[in-house]
């Protein structure tokens, strides 16, 4: 939606190097530079991140809530897909 506040952008924050970026929220901005700055000012004020991605919200392709059952229910009863039968190797922090 484009109006006086600029368009909507989704913000993803990486808390430490090598960790995945996580969705943090959204902001308004009129261009890329402003989007990064606004994301920095809103979502990393308390040291939450070392990296930022911003993506125009209308570039995100989302699943349709109506497809929820067919997309996700088939995975629910397949417990053998969970890695619960393995032991965490010593020293592995992020698996």
């Amino acid at each position, binding site marked *: 939606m484009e109006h*006086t*506040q*600029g368009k909507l952008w989704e913000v993803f924050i990486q808390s430490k190097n090598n960790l995945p970026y996580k969705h943090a929220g959204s*902001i*308004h*901005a*009129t*261009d890329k*530079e*402003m989007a990064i*700055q*606004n994301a920095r*000012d*809103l979502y990393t*004020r308390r040291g939450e991140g070392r990296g930022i991605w911003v993506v125009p919200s209308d570039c995100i392709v989302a699943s349709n809530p109506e497809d929820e059952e067919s997309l996700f229910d088939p995975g629910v009863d397949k417990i053998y897909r969970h890695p619960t039968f393995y032991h965490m190797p010593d020293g592995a922090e992020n698996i």
Partner: protein
Amino acid sequence: MTDKERLLQYCLRQGDTHIIFGYRLGEWCSKAHILEEDIALTNIALDHMGLGNAWLERAASVDSEKRSPDDLAYRRNEREYYNLLLAEQPNGNYANTIARQFLFDVYSVLYYSELLNSADDTLAGIAGKGLKEVRYHYKHSAQWVVRLGDGTVESHKKIQEAIDDMWRFTEELFEMDETDDIIAKSGVGVDVSGLKEAWKTQVSEVLEKATLSLPDHNLSRTGSKTGVHTEHLGHILAEMQYLPRAYPDAQW
């Protein structure tokens, strides 16, 4: 003047400038045109307050009257405040604020880059921390100058008027008196008169990118080094110092 008195004076000039910039930017809290900018400006205000506090702590450490940083901030009168006149200028519209910040931010990056080499460890430390912050302030204000200048007819007009208007307070950034001279020669402070050329070049580059022109007047107003201010500082101090003066025992 003793060495300590001179250093006190020097630290007050820098500290006061940051405190007053911080106060002015804080006035935008809850009033900016979008939430994101509101937070950006108050973040920057807090950076200025932090830098101001660091300078006033150094000032307090050499003060023969043993005043604390809070005493220095809240118990000095207008004539004992030494902030740059630029800092106390009213927020006006958004372009006025951006112009004021931009002209200072360019200077500030140059200033702290030099202060990194200060013979005084505390000041060099302030520069190390400050430089990271003021570089961001510069990015923020310079991008807005370009956005407004190269934006609509109305935004172009407003930012050009604002730059023209603030211009008369920029000569003071590069002014040196005897105190500044001695502090600079001892390797503790910065010879700011030497920053003017680089400042003008950088300001010109951004203005050109913003399709704006350098002001064509040479009006200039100074006075802060001797505590002579524009009519605005008194109003700021009246509000800022009200609480600690009315309730001296008040605790945060």
